[in-house]
């Protein structure tokens, strides 16, 4: 286990900080964090300590923003500036590749992408992606960190959506198309996928827990990246994303 004196810093989206922060705290780390606007003041569990600015005495920093590129870029630049160039930065690379993010900072060898996506961060495995700039010592540090945290990792290529978020968002999109076409009720779709194929959650309840806006962000990024009609989003998904943030 990591030592209890170790500080880690999380900056980014509320859902991701709450989920990943709780995991890290439960495993003995001291978690400091800063939430993105407009959720800056949103209530977090007490054990997640809020910071007004980036603390310098942290072992590792996480940038956990998926939807908003401008905010993500601002956060990463600030981390790059505030932290000693040897400190690792793990950044969610679900909607923007780690490679693209590495062009924003002065010390790209410390940057590693990760699959930070709601409901998946508290599971047993995290995907990580290196860029051509990532130093080999950085990757072995990241492996050490997650192994000590009790997580498995899988190193995958640096692509939009990575593996699990991409499959999951496509499953939710398909269910949203099915509802858009009125073939069955949302409840029956969830029941069918859990009872007929043994899925851990129904696609609609899963989308609700993740937040449909997060699902939309991944699919729109895939659509832009791959340019295929296959990744177009269901009208219902867009509406849910606007309605339930």
């Amino acid at each position, binding site marked *: 286990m990591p030592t209890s004196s170790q500080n880690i810093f999380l900056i980014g989206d509320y859902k991701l900080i709450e989920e990943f922060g709780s995991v890290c705290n439960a495993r003995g780390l001291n978690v400091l964090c800063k939430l993105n606007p407009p959720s800056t003041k949103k209530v977090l569990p007490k054990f997640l300590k809020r910071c007004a600015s980036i603390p310098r005495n942290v072992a590792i920093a996480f940038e956990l923003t998926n939807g908003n590129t401008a905010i993500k870029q601002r956060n990463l630049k600030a981390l790059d500036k505030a932290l000693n160039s040897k400190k690792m930065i793990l950044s969610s690379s679900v909607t923007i590749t780690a490679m693209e993010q590495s062009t924003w900072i002065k010390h790209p060898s410390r940057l590693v992408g990760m699959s930070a996506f709601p409901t998946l961060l508290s599971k047993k*495995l995290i995907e990580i992606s290196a860029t051509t700039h990532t130093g080999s010592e950085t990757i072995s540090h990241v492996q050490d960190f997650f192994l000590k945290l009790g997580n498995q990792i899988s190193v995958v*290529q640096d692509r939009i959506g990575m*593996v699990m978020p991409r499959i999951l968002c496509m499953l939710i999109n398909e269910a949203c198309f099915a509802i858009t076409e009125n073939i*069955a009720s949302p409840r*029956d779709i969830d029941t069918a996928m859990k009872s007929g194929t043994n899925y851990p959650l129904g696609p609609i309840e899963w989308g609700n827990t993740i937040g449909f806006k997060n699902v939309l962000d991944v699919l729109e990024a895939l659509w832009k990246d791959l340019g295929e009609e296959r990744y177009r989003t269901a009208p219902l998904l867009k509406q849910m994303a606007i309605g339930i943030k």
Partner: protein
Amino acid sequence: MVKTVGVIGAGTMGSGIAHVSALSGFDVFLYDIEESLLNNALQRISTDLRKSFEKGKITETQSAETGARIHPRLTMGDFSKCAIIIEAAVELLKTKRSIFEQLDTLCSPDVLLATNTSSLSVTSIASATRYPERVLGMHFFNPPHIIKLLEIVKCRRTSDQTIERAIQFAQQLGKQPVVVKDTPGFIVNRCARPFYGEALRLLGEGVTSIEEIDRIVKLEGGFKMGPFELMDLIGIDVNLSVTKSMYEQTFYEPRYKPHHIQQALVDAGHLGRKTKQGFYRYES
């Protein structure tokens, strides 16, 4: 009130449907065209019943009574006595339409006629009859005596009363019915397409390996099985044919486009567990 159930086709699905119906107290006529097929089905049912008994799920009396309620038939004459008939014959539209045409003549118009098709248009099967309002899809999942889910498929011309009666019957079987319009893939086959399709895309794009995708899906996603081990279990040929059928029936919707990796494995005869090789190798 349903007392007698007819099952057409004594393959895996047909015998499973006969099993669950008889176990729920219905008398069952089980039809197929060859005696050997019927004998195999009765053998399979008796093996499955013994397994259920050994697991403590049913009593010895229940097992014996269930077996005794199944009546094999090489002709359809007795099917006029049934209140509901479920067809689980070969997945060919022509065969199914011909069976429904015969049943339509044989049975009074208030008898429910259901097809267990998973990939054909129920509406097209129904249109071979004079009374399509009593025709519907009842899509059981394999093995039918274990999986609770039952997709009740409503065609353009199926009456609401037919659907209500089918739901009631499903509940008597101890099933969990969901109602879906007759559209390609119904709910499960359709909504599960991306699980395989995106995994194949990820593999094709070189994002990571077969083993890693399966490991990620299980440990990060919380799924019981990864997409590649599941395709090997289902049969890569079976999975490809479902995908192809959906792709064609939707007039080539890109989300259902099959992947050439699947076709290559089928061409190589690597169909999954049943041929000891698919995405993985299996020692015999």
